[in-house]
């Protein structure tokens, strides 16, 4: 097969990089694919026309209560007075929002203005009520084995559109709750694993040099490249050595481009306040959301943000309102901003925790709930999903899934589907088997596709 031997003059840098077979993303080159001359992070065609090009996953660690946010249960409100071992009705009020009349709790006033963009998944289900296992399952599909994370699978499946940024970025990830497993690549090549970024601007490792001025460093790299090209004359066309040469050019540029993307101070005041950067309550998650938009613009394929502290065994009223207040404006700002840039239609936002909270009063004080995986809620927006829409339902107490169950594999299958990937065809051969993100199950919730 003759793939790269015809000589044509590259028109743009992009053409040049494509021509030389190792261009995009982290500019990775896998020797195992040497015969195929493929950069593992070069953009790959989807299996079918995608609705979304990228994902922003807003992970709410701890298990946010669906009963206080997106799953209104009038029956539970009637019988749930609280007390030891008693049912507990929602501690917040719900109002119909937008044209669709989607029911959203009062803790999300700003997000409610985007009700007609939200596709609320009320029939989520996970297999365990343990934080760690459910968190790992949410991210990798397996609470039993060490498996590649969803972001790694997606980057493996689609490559990256980011020229000088990683394809999969996770901002302020958890150190515990499975830690790096949640953005790891397990048996997939390491180039697909998530790159950790600090939301406060703590960037990519080794991105600047404190000893050398740029001009001197350029001279140093010129020397390196001279040596590399000399070696290339002995191994003409060797894609690995070409990969090394290109990796230095890209690395050199990244020293400017990466801090540039991370520098959210460059955003105008109007945008900064749109994300709540001028308020201490919203600043933290606001920075994350704004960073997510900047990364999305640059073509990063999978961006995860993490917000902690949703484990409300007690102080449900105070704790949950405080947590919700921290994300309400920033997420609303993110949706507004993506919309005004025309990016919401192909950016899939996914919001949710590892599980929800049960209908019973956890401590008997009428102000807390326990872990609950049997039925809970998440939501999606943009990326080709129906807006102002509820999918599935729990029973009248908000306890178990009553219709259209969506377990973790179903969720993953649906996310892949929106990205144009068939979850049964996205496989990787390891240990003699073809592995999938969805293992042996997973059903796409086609009804939610707009």
């Amino acid at each position, binding site marked *: 097969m003759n793939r790269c031997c015809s000589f044509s003059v590259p028109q743009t840098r992009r053409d040049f990089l494509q021509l030389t077979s190792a261009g995009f993303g982290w500019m990775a080159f896998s020797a195992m694919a040497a015969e195929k001359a493929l950069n593992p992070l070069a953009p790959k065609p989807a299996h079918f026309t995608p609705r979304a090009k990228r994902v922003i996953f807003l992970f709410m660690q701890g298990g946010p209560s669906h009963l206080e946010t997106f799953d209104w249960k009038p029956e539970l409100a009637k019988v749930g007075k609280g007390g030891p071992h008693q049912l507990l009705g929602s501690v917040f009020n719900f109002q119909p929002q937008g044209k669709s009349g989607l029911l959203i709790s009062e803790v999300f006033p700003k997000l409610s203005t985007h009700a007609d963009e939200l596709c609320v998944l009320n029939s989520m289900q996970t297999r365990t009520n343990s934080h760690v296992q459910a968190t790992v399952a949410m991210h990798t599909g397996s609470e039993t084995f*060490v498996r590649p994370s969803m972001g790694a699978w997606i980057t493996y499946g689609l490559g990256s559109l980011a020229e000088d940024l990683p394809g999969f970025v996770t901002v302020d990830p958890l150190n515990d709750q*499975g830690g790096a497993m949640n953005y790891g690549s397990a048996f997939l*090549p390491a180039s697909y694993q998530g790159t950790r970024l600090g939301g406060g601007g703590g960037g990519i490792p080794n991105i600047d040099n404190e000893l050398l001025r740029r001009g001197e460093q350029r001279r*140093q790299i010129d020397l390196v490249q001279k040596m590399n090209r000399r070696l290339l004359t002995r191994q003409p066309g060797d894609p690995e050595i070409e990969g090394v040469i290109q990796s230095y050019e890209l690395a050199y540029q990244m020293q400017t481009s990466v801090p540039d993307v991370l520098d959210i101070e460059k955003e105008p005041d109007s945008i900064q306040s749109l994300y709540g950067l001028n308020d201490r309550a919203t600043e933290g998650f606001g920075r994350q959301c704004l960073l997510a938009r900047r990364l999305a613009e640059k073509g990063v394929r999978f961006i995860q943000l993490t917000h902690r502290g949703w484990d409300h065994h007690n102080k449900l009223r105070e704790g949950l309102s405080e947590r919700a207040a921290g994300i309400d404006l920033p997420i609303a700002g993110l949706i507004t901003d993506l919309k005004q840039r025309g990016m919401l239609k192909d950016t899939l936002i996914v919001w949710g925790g590892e599980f929800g909270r049960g209908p019973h009063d956890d401590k008997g004080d009428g102000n807390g709930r326990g872990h609950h995986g049997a039925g809970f809620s998440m939501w999606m927006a943009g990326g080709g999903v129906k807006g102002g829409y509820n999918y599935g339902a729990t029973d009248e107490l908000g306890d178990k899934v009553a219709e259209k169950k969506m377990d973790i594999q179903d969720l993953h299958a649906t996310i892949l589907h929106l990205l144009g990937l068939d979850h049964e065809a996205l496989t990787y051969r390891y240990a003699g088997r073809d*592995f999938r993100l969805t293992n*042996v199950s997973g059903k796409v919730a086609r009804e939610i596709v707009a």
Partner: protein
Amino acid sequence: MNLPPCELPASQSTRMLFAALLLGIITSIAPAEETPWSFKPLKRPEVPTIKNTAWLKDGLDVFILAKLEAEGIAPNPDADRVTLLRRASYDLTGLPPTPAEVDAFVRDPSSDDQAFARVLDRLLASPRFGERWARHWLDVAHYADSIGRTMNAVFPYAFRYRDYVIDALNADKPYNRFVAEQVAGDLLPWKTPAEREMNLLATGFLTFGATDLSDSGGEQFALDQVDDQIDVTTRAFMGLTVACARCHDHKTDPVAQMDYYALAGIFYSTETWPGVAGKGNLGPNGYVDEDRLVRLPGSTAAAQKPAKTSSTAGGNDMTSAMMEQMNPTKGYPTMFRFLPDRAMGVSEGEVSDCRIAIKGDPHDRGEAPPRGRIEIPGLPKLAPIPKNASGRLQLAEWLISPQNPLTPRVMVNRVWQHLFGSGIVRTVDDFGSTGEAPTHPELLDHLAVRFVEGGWSVKKLIRAMMLSRTYRMVSDGRAPNPDDSFYWRMRPRRLEVEPIRDTMLLAADRLKFEKPTGIQVAGFGGKGRAAWSRSLMKEDAPYRTIYLPALRGILPSMHELFDFADPSQIKGQREVTTVAPQALFFMNSELVADLARDTAEAVLAEKAEQTKQVESVYQRILARKPTREEIADATQFLKEMDLSPAERWATFIQALFASAEFRYVL
């Protein structure tokens, strides 16, 4: 073929779904009946006839040449001595040759064959050999210094297994013995306490499963542990994924679920001592439990004085570390004393066959096949297992029996891969139907037969491969056409993280050749800052990289950058990726900057004229002298840089570390 994946489902609802799917699969795909090529008996292959007999150096070359001649591909000429020595030194010791070694080899007046044979004998006898080749085995054994998964408690005693592997390779322990010790060392006869200790340390091999400590104690945990032991044993030694048959008959290989549980019974009757405890059984050390370790007999253990605290080898801040130990948060110490009579390992447990877990459900059990009654078509049967024995001894005998063709084939293929860049069977861990067929099947058998006849000596095998013509060719040329799998040249190979780091330390005169002593990990696992497992040896510790702890999920960043095998996975073949963060690492990391500065200091201290200093830099880093052109480039560069002399040299040295040539074995 698009294979359905195989995994254990956990909840009732998915189990039902799984059952439904499974029925569909079983009715739609007939079980594989054909015996894979790799199960066929080992036999001495016929030697093909070739034209150019003068090309041959070793018996293996004829198989390479036959194919080259058939394809009409001309092999490359031999590499020069300087190139060959660097290649051989990295392959055998993971380090470059010293200038004196280069000089001696280049000036050796004897024939290439004789001179190179002497070099190989020297390198094979070096203690550095074991440090290089043990790491290859540790990848396959999924060696780790912590358990990973949810609680990630450290394995303070893992290093003893690591050191066992290094010692075994240095001593050229026959491979069949090496296999038997790891599976059944505790059951093997012994003469001296030292031998007994070695046998016990070897069984650490069976204790590295990444099991979930939040879920321990129950039947599920026990079966997960057994599953890992089956997986590592069958994949490491036989290249088979038997663990696939946990929930159903293997879909592509002739391994039935009954075979799986026949094997499971053996490990089910084995007690595992990993030194950690599950959530329900926390002792004074949290998830780390020194009572759940095997006891070693006197000998070396008694001779060693028990260390009071962990060593300070990693340059860790002992004062704060000690304070932490004295005032542990949550009542658990986070640093561990080294008790020389303890190790990870296994012993005989309560003997019982293992009942089939229907579709992998630990609570839905079927009949129990007699343990060890494996009926894999084409493979021998296990010897009868005595009533009161687990059967590991019989399993070990079976693995190394002359009738088992997989064990030698898989091992010679692993060794070949490390010397030639890819296996004769490229899927080194998969010799089943889903793996690739060998590119040179006769060569594989030729090597396997020689390996067994040579007393399973790994060093002899390596020596023969390296003395071959095939190994000595120059790597220049254009690939992939013709394809490298014809072996018309030596394939250029990217160095792994270990030799890259070790060489930089060596160039800077900072590398120590001793082992660090004692436990180099801390943290009892689980939640909370104090519990976090961590390495006490930093990336700049002056020890060889194999001695840096490999904690699951928290590897040193350099390991991640340069494709270290994920220690949760059984992985005989590492990825080779080339990514911009590697370039950034050489350009900007503190570690490279420090080592470049130290190298500069060492070179400047030689007080030679500049050309000599440039030569010294090239020798330290690339194990060769610079060309005239390169000296001119260096001179120009050093003149132009507007920096202090030391900084100028450091910048130049850093450029050499950054070069592709440094990263590749040519």
